[in-house]
């Protein structure tokens, strides 16, 4: 069984190589491919790549909010928190089920190493909710834009993770605890499994500053043992400076000469690849030069938003100062999806250390400010994808490493400090999806009455990965490399219930 899986991978890999050899390896061939795209004759993802089955989606826009979005103030309303506000868990009928030590330890990897006090004093919801759209999906008032998109959204309310500290940022992307080191991220599996649908751009792009050093840093878009070729490529959205060193310092260097240079380089590195056939770094470097050559023109084009109408820019919140920055990233993401970039990973909330969303204090002020930065851009992105007929084949995923505690973060009862924030919460939180063959207006999974434990349709983060991969035509079970052991928990299970 193992052997046949491997064969299948190898055959898809070689199919991809054949394609590239056939159509893409020569630079003129690459340019031709990009012309095909611009003329709208996009080949189906299936014909281009090593998919395991017919894909539903072509691209994923993966939005990560660094630091921990409160599920309780976004997508998972818990009236009980208002009802019992100021009381402790023990004064509610739910104490026993919530505080069961075994349950508390159930999710955590190495619970003995993850001491964290349970804050029992209940903090009321810091924002009101509204039932929205035909579906009546409840979304908090800090997300007025997303409220209008309710019927396009699917809320996974039963998510959980294994780390109660911000190392969970890495876990969210790899399924592994940060102490285990780097593992392939979901985006790198996409890159590895499918290759590119566009030779002019990387298949896996990262916009925004990723997690800080504490919490995974570049590993959150890394490829680990899949080789650096499959790691996310970071780009700027600044139209004036989309890419450094994009022009040659040689005055009047002709494009013919450039092409000849890249050609010779390709030949020489190709000879080195014969001497070192297993050097994955060398392969990655060859690919990086092919890409670099194309990106000299493709990236400035991509970030040139002048081609977009004022209405579109406004839709993404680019004309509002708070949301301008993230709006640009979302718009760039749509443009990349149009061009066939497979996995577009957007980071929001880099602030060094844990990240901006980490609201141990002043959650109300903190979250309401941050929501203004991301709500309109994300809502605009979904609306725009929809109006362009792209939403069905583009999956938007919004999440963060964990949720936040129902209890207010307090010190002790004598203290005059009023808990105004919530602590880290790995036991239950929400991830929002839209498009790419996922049902709209859908709720899947639930936390308990206090929003503490995920109790229904519980999913570990890698189930989300498996689902994303599945929609792109990849079977997570078949993704493996010889000599690399993948655990069941790395592979995850597809969340079929939410698929169209």
């Amino acid at each position: 069984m193992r052997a046949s899986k491997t064969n299948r991978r190898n055959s898809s890999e070689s199919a991809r190589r054949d394609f590239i050899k056939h159509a893409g390896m020569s630079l003129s061939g690459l340019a031709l491919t990009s012309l095909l795209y611009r003329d709208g004759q996009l080949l189906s993802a299936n014909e281009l790549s090593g998919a395991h089955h017919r894909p539903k989606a072509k691209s994923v826009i993966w939005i990560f909010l660094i630091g921990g979005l409160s599920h309780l103030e976004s997508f998972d309303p818990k009236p009980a928190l208002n009802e019992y506000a100021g009381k402790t868990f023990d004064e509610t009928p739910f104490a026993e089920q919530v505080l069961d030590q075994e349950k508390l330890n159930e999710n955590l990897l190495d619970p003995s190493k993850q001491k964290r006090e349970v804050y029992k004093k209940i903090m009321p919801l810091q924002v009101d909710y509204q039932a929205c759209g035909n579906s009546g999906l409840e979304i908090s008032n800090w997300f007025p834009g997303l409220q209008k998109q309710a019927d396009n959204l699917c809320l996974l309310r039963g998510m959980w993770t294994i780390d109660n500290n911000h190392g969970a940022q890495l876990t969210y992307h790899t399924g592994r605890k940060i102490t285990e080191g780097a593992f392939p991220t979901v985006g790198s599996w996409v890159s590895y499994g499918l290759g590119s649908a566009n030779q002019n751009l990387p298949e896996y792009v990262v916009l925004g500053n990723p997690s800080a050093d504490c919490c995974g840093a570049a590993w959150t878009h890394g490829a680990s043992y899949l080789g650096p070729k499959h790691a996310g490529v970071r780009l700027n959205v600044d139209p004036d400076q989309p890419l450094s060193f994009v022009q040659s310092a040689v005055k009047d260097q002709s494009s013919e000469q450039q092409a000849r240079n890249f050609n010779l380089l390709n030949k020489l590195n190709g000879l080195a690849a014969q001497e070192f056939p297993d050097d994955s770094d060398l392969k990655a470097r060859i690919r990086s030069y092919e890409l670099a050559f194309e990106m000299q023109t493709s990236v400035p084009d991509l970030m040139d938003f002048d081609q977009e109408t004022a209405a579109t820019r406004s839709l993404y919140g680019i004309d509002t100062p708070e949301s301008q920055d993230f709006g640009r990233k979302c718009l760039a993401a749509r443009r990349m999806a149009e061009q066939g970039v497979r996995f577009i990973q957007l980071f929001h909330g880099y602030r060094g250390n844990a990240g901006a969303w980490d609201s141990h204090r002043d959650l109300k002020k903190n979250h309401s400010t941050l929501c203004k930065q991301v709500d309109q851009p994300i809502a605009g992105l979904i609306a725009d994808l929809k109006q362009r007929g792209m939403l069905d084949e583009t999956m938007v995923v919004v999440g963060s490493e964990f949720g936040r505690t129902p209890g207010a973060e307090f010190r002790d009862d004598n203290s005059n400090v009023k808990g105004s924030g919530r602590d880290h919460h790995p036991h239950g939180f929400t991830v929002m999806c839209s498009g790419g063959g996922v049902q709209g207006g859908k709720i899947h999974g639930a936390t308990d009455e206090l929003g503490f434990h995920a109790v229904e349709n519980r999913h570990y983060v890698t189930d989300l990965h498996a689902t994303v991969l599945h929609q792109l035509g990849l079977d997570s079970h078949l993704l493996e490399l010889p000599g690399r052991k993948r655990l069941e928990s790395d592979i995850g299970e597809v969340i079929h219930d939410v698929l169209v």
Partner: protein
Amino acid sequence: MNYRSLIVVRIFFGWLLLTLQPIGANPVHRSTLVKHFGDLLITDLRGCNLCHLGDGQSQPSSLEEFPHNAFGDHLRRMGEELVDSGRDDSIVSRLTELADADSDQDGYSNLTELLLESHPGDDEVIPTDALLQLRDERVTAYDAMRSAYVWRPFDPIEQPAIPETESRWVRNPIDVFITEKLRARDLSPQSEADPQRLLRRIYLDLVGLQPTISEIQSFTDEYASDPSSYERVVDRLLEHPGYGERWGRHWMDIWRYSDWSGYKDALRESQRHIWHWRDWIVESLNEDLGYDQILTRMLAADELQLTGKDLRATGYLARNFHTNRNQWMDNLVKHTSQAFMGVTLGCAKCHDHMSDPFPQTDYYALRAVFEPHAISTDRIPGQLDIKANGIPRAYDRSVTAKTYLFERGDERFPDKDEIIPPGVPAILGGSFYPETISLTHSNANPDQRDFVRMDLIESLRSKQRQAKTDLEAEVHERQIEALQAEFELEAEEANGLAETSERWQELAKGVLALQRVSTSVSATWQLQVAEESLKAAEEALKEAESSGDASAISKASKQRDTHQKTLDERTAKQQAAEAAMNEPLTTKFSRREQTTYPSQSSGRRLAFAKWLVSPTNPLTARVAVNHLWNRHFGRGIVASTNDFGNTGSTPTHPELLDWLAAELMNQRWSMKSIHRLICTSATYRMSSSLNHESRSVDPDNQLYWRQNIGRMEGEIVRDNLLYLSGRLDQSVGGADIDPNLAQKSRRRSIYLRHAHEKLVEFIQIFDGPAVTECYARENSIQPHQALALINSQLSVDAARAVCEAPKRVDLNDGDFVEQVFLTVLGRNVTPEEKKHCLDFLETSDRFNLTLVLLNHNDFVTIR
């Protein structure tokens, strides 16, 4: 209390304990047991039931309710036996004694049952046939685990014995430890790298510059007949000034070197002129100053009473300066513990450390070590303006600075009930005794040093030379006189002259007399200047009046009034000065402005440094050698170089790491001796080529069956673009260079400014270090790097210089190709490569060929 009542109390408390606490299996025994067997003990055998009867779920209140089973009882009896015979009765010894016994009499020994998922205390549970097949395998695994070297990073370092070996591959003890592990997995080491690759590797590794053509040629010739020529190369490179620059950058990553940053002129982080510290690092490495000395001086050069340039060492502390004092202290605690000790004490700011045995107070105790200190800038010879240049250094501003624990790490809520004394984590052992240090007079009064006095006098002399009038010249003459009299007084004060003494009063009066003269002459000169200005203003007014221009008249008149006002003020001043001359002399002269430090230093930092570099400190040497190994092999023996605690990585070769750590101390903390050991080992000299069989066993090369393939760091890429094209300016040291000049400057990259928002993009693209922290570099491969290397001015200039060099201009194409391969890639061209290059030259020029080679994978790659 009499004896009888003591017994009563004992009984009472014994009873109380029994009643209040339900009896469970001794948790210490249980965790010892689990630790002893590791993963070999299945979960079902980790519960109370292993030794006790019953369901293990109810809450028994006594041993009667919770009796031992046959195995538990046996263990208990063995304990008593061991005590009676005066032997160690620990649970491990009891287990060892009873391994071959069969407590439940079911025909299978206790050890067999424990390893084969069966119950040693229940005769109804016996190993299944399937598991019995695995018996030998499991026993072997168990024996291997028991005999494996135990990694105890928090225990003092003992140098392990070097295992005996018959391997002929071994060159030094490093190889013995490496080959042991390879043999255990049936792996064999790769052969030695070919001479050209080996040479390029060692050059780039030790000095960050690749060998020149002549160096390559002479080495390959010599090496063929005399293999020891490699050792000579290592020795030579370790004496090359580039060593300090290359490895200086390594330590600057770990010690968080950053030039000053802040909005416009505001100083927010680090200090101006912190580059003095960088130069000190480079010089100290080149001199092979012991690592213990390096740390001690960085933490406490001022408390060691070092002076002048030696105070540059405390740049380590100056770099941590932050406008927010709490942030400043936090950074110091966090990074001192990570960089030097390999523990994340910063995590204990808000609560006890979540995975390592550091209570929250450990964080604040270390903060208390740093609490008294502050940063100042000392003058350097020839420069009185410390804004223009000076040495940022640490000093203690108070010997009694108080540290309070912040509740939940929140600085708004210090717990003022208790002052946290300075200290070190108890779990790490050692002794820490701060003693107050009395600074020498000159150290407490750095502006009284001879050179500062000379510079002050010289600056007045210089003004005097530029004087326009005799009177102005006299002003400076009098100032010099007064200053010299003050210096004389200061000198006698430094020798203990008390203010109460007659001599002091006499001198003070003398200073005052000269100051009065100086003030008076100066006032007269000022008055003269004002008179002249008024005269000029009056003439200007007359001129305006004759022109009749109303606005000009009003302006000129206003100016005249201003000058009149100045004149009036100066007249009054001059009169006052005159009058003062006639007043009786007192001792109240005015002292010059100067930087002074408190005469005492708390000694906390020095005590901490002594504890840190004491041979009994378990972490310092281990962390140090691991940092060295990390740069030589691309991965630390402990991969998480800044975390040796429970959340850190497990070492691949703990025994080797301990051996090296002890060796570092044996070699008087000489880092060069460790470099020499590493670089001359057979392990280091292996080829980096892959071997399919080895790779299938150990894909990440954890066991070092080959050398790892490296990539030049960003600084090294830039330096070599300059060097191989003969344009590198190899001068050492000096002020930081504007990062915007990175493409044009020919200095080594270590001298370019490195600060928040002042980074060199070209270097950052090749995974340059973050300013905030960088304990290990990444090696990414990104299209940005390709663009930087093919399009940048640096590459273009390098390619042009290489192909236009006079020695190459007259070469024919074939020779040119051969030379340029050696120059850029450090190796011979292959016939096939040569053919492609010659074909290329049919349509393109040599410049473009060279540019392509600078982009060849073999340029940035270190094989």
